């Protein structure tokens, strides 16, 4: 105990003050721990999804004989098989594959922007940030289409009482399977989509500050790095959503 109150600077431990024990700035550290807490939120959604899905019966028959029914959980490749401009053509999971590719590419351009920031290369940061923003907007547009299609429904629809047919999905009914299926689709992809939206806003802010020379005057581009962490996290979450919602 006596040594910890010592004012002699020599021989001080890492945790005795004056240094960053985690080797990262305050802002970067806070971003990491924010992302950890955000990962808990997404995990909560995905764990609930796992619980509810595994408590429903799974479809066991052959894939080509699959029909939508509220009695079992639908198989994703028969729900997500539409692509814009190709009406009536069954292309299972192709569109969501394109979305995954877009998000991975925008993660790459983000990491290139961070790399350019380390080199104080303002022009390169501007270029890569612009590509990243474009990727984010492209992803959001795809998701808007995906949601529209999901809500309006596929050809078959679902027969409900009094001989009418229900098309598409809302939070109460859906034509694809149990009501929980659509609820989880809206909550999980919606929460992720909102993260992408906030990410695009933050990326735009960073781009604006780069163009106006804020970081050049500050002498470092650490903000690009911090928002970069957030953007990669959004990509990371999508990797899990893609697997657990669209593939499994």
């Amino acid at each position, binding site marked *: 105990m006596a040594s910890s109150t010592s004012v002699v600077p020599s021989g001080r431990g890492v945790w005795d003050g004056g240094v960053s*024990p*985690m*080797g*990262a700035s305050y802002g970067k*550290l806070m971003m*990491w*721990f924010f992302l*950890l807490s955000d*990962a*808990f939120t997404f*995990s909560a959604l*995905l*764990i609930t999804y*796992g*619980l*509810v*899905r*595994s*408590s*429903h*019966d*799974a*479809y066991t028959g052959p*894939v080509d004989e699959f029909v939508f029914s509220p009695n079992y959980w639908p*198989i994703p*490749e028969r729900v997500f098989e539409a692509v814009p401009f190709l009406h009536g053509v069954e292309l*299972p*999971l192709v569109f969501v*594959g394109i979305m*995954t*590719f877009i998000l*991975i*590419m925008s*993660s*790459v351009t*983000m*990491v*290139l922007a961070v*790399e*350019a920031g*380390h*080199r*104080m*290369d*303002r022009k*390169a940061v501007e270029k890569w940030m612009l590509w990243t923003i474009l990727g984010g907007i492209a992803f959001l547009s795809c998701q808007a289409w995906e949601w529209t299609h999901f809500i309006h429904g596929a050809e078959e629809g679902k027969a409900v009482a009094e001989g009418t047919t229900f098309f598409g999905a809302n939070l109460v009914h859906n034509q694809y399977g149990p009501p929980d299926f659509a609820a989880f689709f809206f909550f999980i992809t919606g929460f992720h989509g909102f993260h992408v939206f906030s990410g695009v806003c933050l990326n735009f802010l960073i781009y604006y500050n780069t163009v106006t*020379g804020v970081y*050049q*005057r500050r002498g470092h581009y650490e903000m690009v790095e911090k928002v970069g*962490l957030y953007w*990669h*996290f959004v*990509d*990371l979450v999508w*990797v*899990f959503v*893609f*697997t657990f919602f669209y*593939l*499994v």
Partner: protein
Amino acid sequence: MDHAEENVDVAVIPPNKEKIRKLWKVAGILGVVTAVEFVIAFTLPHGPSKTFLFVALTIVKAGYIVLEFMHLRYEVKILFWSILIPMIFVVWMLVAFVYEGMAISDVR
């Protein structure tokens, strides 16, 4: 005043080709793993082994994103473990709840 500051030239360090090539390599791996997942989705029958394979490939992708893109591999050890250890408990929770769900399905 502001105008004068704008003209201050900060030396731009030339790009490190090696480092950039490595980033594109990681991107390539992510793309290939996604493509493999696609092939598996349409070739293997639905079942536990397929799910296991998907989860394994997802962990590979997540690993590359966190360790390389988010640079966690190069951070101080204590930061690395502060992020990773809580997530291990989350994985445990996921397994426990999916197991619970299957038990509920049996009771129904």
